């Protein structure tokens, strides 16, 4: 099924033009006989993108997304691996559910699906789920998260951080103090004061991050922070990393690009958790991506059925789609900093969207340098193309993109998963 390919004149990581050859699912030295040729002049090659944070909604909300549609969207967005969050129905808190999701991913074949296991039974924050069984299952779970809910009980968090050391797991924390965010609707600040929406204060994220950095250091565990959204969180993570603690963090494309100013329309397409923050937060998050304080960019792709978004703001579901817009939005956000030239941009994108997330998820087959012998997981990007986001044209069932109508730079031309094209010319292959 995976044929042989010759990708001519492509610029790996934005460097000098070269030819890449694929045979038998791997990158190879020499052009295989009868290889299909792609003229890739002007295109950039990156290792296939890896998402640490995807909601595929199956099982339970197949009206919003399925593993099939979500991973097709991933392929179109240049991803070769996604981590499927545990807040499905039933919750992915036992080996049976994570194996089901893993198998659905295999069957769909658009990209590798690595299920995230719940930290606690039913995401209820009371008892540890069978983390070891999920780690040992066919799905080989390494990332555990109650995402959508914070593991708020400090003792439970401590135990989780300790327990997963036995199988090199990591706890991905959704940092949100529940008491400080009761009924919260948007970032707490000038906009919430004006709009009369209940505020979600930065301190509710930062207080949990500070605590969990200290807990991880204390027990020698590995903590990862999901969707970091505030300047204060960045400072705390920078501090913890300075201490040499085992702390990693991700930021979403939307938190790198949008501020809470957009909430003034009350259009729930902009309602997300954690909420969009201020311009100062966006600047701090961008700087943290540049200097490596934030390790990874993760989509928090959260598709919702139309009726869950076409409502009053307070009644609407939290979340935005992200897989198909992630790379272009990140490129746009990083270029806006003015801090990068072309030679710096693409290696940075490859690191934050592929290599480092693969390392955090312990995925040995992804995020590798584009060298002979490596699995042929790669994406071809046209850096000169621009395109306008049309939610109706995506592969995701979710139409809730906050970027509808925006013109973005960089178009994904092709995605290869172990030598097999999963997306070609903007279509699912």
């Amino acid at each position, binding site marked *: 099924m995976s044929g042989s390919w010759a990708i001519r004149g492509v610029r790996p990581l934005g460097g000098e033009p070269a030819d890449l050859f694929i045979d038998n699912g791997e990158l190879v030295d020499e052009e295989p006989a009868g290889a299909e040729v792609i003229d890739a002049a002007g295109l950039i090659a990156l290792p296939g993108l890896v998402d640490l944070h995807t909601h595929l909604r199956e099982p339970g909300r197949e009206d919003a997304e399925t593993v099939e549609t979500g991973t097709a969207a991933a392929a179109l967005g240049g991803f070769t691996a996604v981590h499927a969050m545990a807040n499905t129905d039933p919750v992915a808190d036992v080996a049976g559910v994570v194996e089901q999701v893993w198998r659905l991913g295999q069957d769909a074949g658009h990209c590798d699906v690595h299920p995230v296991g719940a930290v606690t039974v039913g995401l209820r924050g009371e008892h540890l789920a069978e983390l070891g069984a999920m780690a040992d299952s066919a799905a080989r779970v390494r990332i555990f998260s109650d995402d959508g809910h914070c593991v708020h009980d400090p003792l439970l968090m401590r135990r989780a951080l300790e327990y997963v050391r036995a199988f090199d797991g990591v706890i991905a924390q959704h940092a949100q103090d529940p008491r400080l965010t009761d009924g919260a609707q948007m970032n707490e600040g000038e906009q919430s*004061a004006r709009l009369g*929406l209940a*505020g979600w204060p930065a301190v509710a994220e930062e207080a949990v991050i500070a605590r969990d950095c200290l807990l991880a250091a204390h027990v020698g565990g590995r903590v990862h922070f999901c969707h970091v959204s505030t300047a204060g969180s960045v400072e705390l993570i920078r501090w913890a990393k300075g201490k040499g603690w085992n702390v990693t963090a991700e930021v979403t494309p939307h938190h790198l690009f949008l501020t809470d100013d957009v909430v003034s329309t009350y259009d729930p397409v902009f309602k997300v958790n954690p909420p969009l923050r201020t311009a100062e937060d966006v600047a701090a998050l961008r700087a943290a991506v540049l200097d490596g304080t934030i390790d990874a960019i993760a989509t928090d792709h959260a598709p919702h059925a139309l009726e869950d978004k076409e*409502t*009053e*703001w*307070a009644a609407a579901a939290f979340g935005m789609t992200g897989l198909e817009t992630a790379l272009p939005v990140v490129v746009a956000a990083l270029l806006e900093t003015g801090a990068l030239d072309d030679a710096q941009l693409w290696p940075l994108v490859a690191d934050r969207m592929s290599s480092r997330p693969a390392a955090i998820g312990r995925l040995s087959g992804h995020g590798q340098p584009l060298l002979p012998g490596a699995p042929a997981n790669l994406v071809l990007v046209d850096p000169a193309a621009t395109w306008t986001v049309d939610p109706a044209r995506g592969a995701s069932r979710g139409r809730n993109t906050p970027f509808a109508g925006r013109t973005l730079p960089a178009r994904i031309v092709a995605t290869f998963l172990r030598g097999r094209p999963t997306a070609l010319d903007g279509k699912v292959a």
Partner: protein
Amino acid sequence: MNRHLLSAADLSRDDALLVLDTAEEMAQVADRPIKKLPTLRGRTVVNLFFEDSTRTRTSFELAAKRLSADVINFSAKGSSVSKGESLKDTALTLEAMGADAVVVRHWASGAPHRLAHWIRGSVLNAGDGTHEHPTQALLDAFTMRQRLGRLEGLNVGIVGDVLHSRVARSNVLLLHTLGADVTVVAPPTLLPVGVDAWPCAVSFDLDGVLPKCDVVMMLRVQRERMHGGFFPTTREYSRRYGLDARRLAMLPDDAIVMHPGPMNRGVEIAAEVADGVRSTIVEQVANGVSVRMAVLYLLLGGDLSAGSEDVA
């Protein structure tokens, strides 16, 4: 004027003064034996109330009827939990019925903005969640001008649960537009984070503010706030932020006392203050009808005079 009235910030100074001047003309109608004008004959006004509010609904209903509009009361009480017909479906229904104006009261901040997105008629915000209540601010400004003869340079204290008050938000914006100097007064727990960006002064000390107030507006303390941990006890709130006879005496001689109603007598306002000569509370209700007539008239471009209003 804009097609909709969603926020007091939608009104320029000229717009706001036009509403107040028009309301004065409308007030004269109330003194006639036949309290009715033909200006909105054949137009349909829908009162869409997702929250109980007999006084506001009645006020709008009376205003629309005095302008000869056809009035439909559409009570769609529901909560975020009990999912009945969605706001969008309700909007599409009203659109199909040919509503020229929809007066909406809703528990969710921003619901009128969503509604305006889905229908062609004018949307009039009659109070949305903890956001705004622009016609309340207009009737308050009307009342101040009627009693004190001006708005420019008036010192207005707005006292109480500013955090959750749509009346406070609309009044701060409108009074600033009209040149008054507003001070919001509340315990720090009942002021929103971000209040510093509002065009008003902020104080925690009612006794310090009262002596310079031309107007003191007391806000209702909602029952659920009393148990929400925003202040230790209702008694302590009342002692520190309630308007009683002692505090009333601190006001300048011609200062007035306002309250948007309904009042918690003995909590934010003492009964003798509410019923005293400085209280404008009953006038506020009467003025509400005139102001709402003016807003409906201006939004729908009725033909009060020979001149034609722009139905933008």
